[in-house]
């Protein structure tokens, strides 16, 4: 391990600790908000938004997606398309029934 690389990883470690603190903070926020028992659509939107931010932090920094190769992005982009299609299947079910 050369010195420059080791120094770069030490800097990354500081980022990991910052992300860790952010994730803990967001967990506390999401649990606190849930105690307000907001209207279901609002509660779902807020909870999923916070979860999306937390998930993005994990993917970007712990899974190193912030600096990954194009092929990995392409594979994940394709996965995202199919995932979204899955999520919209229930909607199409209701559209089909004319509701």
């Amino acid at each position: 391990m050369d010195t420059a690389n080791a120094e770069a990883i030490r800097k990354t470690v500081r980022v990991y600790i910052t992300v860790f603190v952010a994730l803990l903070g967001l967990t506390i926020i999401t649990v606190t908000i849930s105690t307000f028992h907001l209207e279901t659509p609002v509660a779902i939107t807020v909870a999923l938004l916070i979860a999306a931010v937390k998930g993005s932090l994990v993917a970007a920094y712990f899974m190193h997606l912030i600096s990954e190769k194009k092929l990995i992005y392409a594979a994940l982009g394709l996965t995202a398309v199919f995932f979204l299609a899955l999520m919209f299947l229930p909607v199409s079910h209701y559209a089909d029934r004319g509701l």
Partner: protein
Amino acid sequence: MEIPYTVDPRPDTGVYNAKLGVWLFLASEVMLFGALFSSYVLLRVGAVSWPHGYEHLNIPLATVNTVVLITSSVTMVMAWASLAMGSLKRFRIFMGSTVALALVFLVIKGFEYAAKFEHGLYPSGSTFMAIYFTLTGLHALHIVGGIIVNSYLLGPGSRMWRTQPARFTNRVEVAGLYWHFVDLVWIFLFPVLYLL
């Protein structure tokens, strides 16, 4: 026969083979959990009434488990960083912590399940409990898988460090990708099942 591109990136993909392989595996995992999430949405939207998770589930225990899993993700990435900085000793400490935290998660989950069974809440009891047990059960199985792989890397698998340190570091990195994915799934399961 030597396995190609275990350390150096393959010229056409830009990454070592194991990394691409694990990412493709994770893509299939997204579809597995995605199908169940989609089913959850369909069942919830189509139900005449749907219980709030907080009425039936233990939020304090699930919050502790969320913190446990997030912490294990940090120890996992620190285990990889330790190897990248050349320290097997620190790797052992962080990987050991990751495995221990994963076991803590399962024990807490076990207490949660036991409490549900004591109150007569089984998967067959309601659609909500069915989807709760299916999603958390499948997630728990993934935790078990992670414990097995990480324990191997902590124990006998770490012998590779003496002969092929770069390859071993990459193995830990891809095991980490899987482990962070398991954490990521929980990050969505927690609010969807417990808080809404």
